[in-house]
């Protein structure tokens, strides 16, 4: 089954709907790699909430997708690893290097915004190039997504168990 990929500002969001076969994973990798180039995406979110098992093969594949996207200029955040899946991954000694992790979509977007903001602000200040800030367009235009704001958001976490549509609208 093909994994649907949504474009959200500078980011791509792939929601894995069911257990993936090797071909599906290959397709996902090629799809993401292609679109990262086409849309100049700087971040990719892979939602794995629907996966009830993440074994060594799935880990290796996700890892290679993330590393490949990194070489294409995009950072990957994995979203929604279930607690018992995380437990088994730790028992198996599986780790994901060079990959961010977040509990839900909202947090993942925030994670990417934090990453993309710093260099963009720096570039805007240095060159005064208006495109510098336009390129961060996936992010809310407020440049104040600082640690303080983040902490407040985390305190509110229990309310935002699911990705809120609000956070999706920000990037338009």
């Amino acid at each position: 089954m093909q994994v649907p990929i949504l474009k959200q500002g500078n980011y791509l969001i792939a929601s894995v709907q069911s257990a993936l076969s090797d071909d599906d994973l290959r397709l996902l990798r090629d799809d993401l790699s292609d679109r990262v180039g086409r849309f100049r995406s700087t971040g990719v979110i892979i939602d794995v909430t629907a996966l009830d098992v993440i074994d060594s093969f799935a880990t290796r594949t996700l890892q290679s997708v993330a590393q490949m996207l990194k070489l294409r200029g995009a950072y990957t955040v994995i979203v929604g690893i279930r607690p018992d899946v995380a437990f088994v991954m730790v028992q198996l000694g599986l780790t994901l290097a060079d990959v961010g992790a977040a509990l839900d979509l909202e947090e993942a977007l925030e994670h990417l915004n934090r990453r993309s903001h710093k260099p963009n602000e720096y570039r805007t200040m240095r060159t005064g190039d208006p495109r510098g800030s336009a390129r961060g367009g996936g992010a809310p235009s407020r440049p104040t997504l600082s640690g303080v704001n983040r902490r407040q958001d985390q305190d509110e976490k229990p309310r935002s168990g699911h990705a809120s549509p609000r956070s999706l609208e920000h990037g338009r």
Partner: protein
Amino acid sequence: MADESRINISNAAEIVTARRQGRVLAVQLGFDGSELTVIATAISEIARNILEHAKDGEVIISRCNHRRKCGICVVARDSGPGIADIDQAMQYGYSTHKGLGIGLPGTKLLMDEFHIVSVVGQGTTVTMKKWRH
């Protein structure tokens, strides 16, 4: 209640079938929470091993009892090339394929009992059990 299910493994979709059946039987046997994920992951690893090394084989999932203990037994059987050096294959991080080398040793960590018998040229049989605590 079916106490045994047998799944042929010859493509990736059947790995998913195997772990799903394993989960169903494990629920019937009274396993819950993370134990279900542990069992499903172990089946997934072992079934993938069949696919990668022997191309095809079968996974048999059944109920098992020992004294007053009850548990789930998973047998993975193939008639592939076999494993020449089992000690080496069971080493964490060792892989003849391009894998992570976590499949076999990792599965052993997940389960309570794990036995592997292999004859070069004839095939490999892995028998593993998880007891309900």
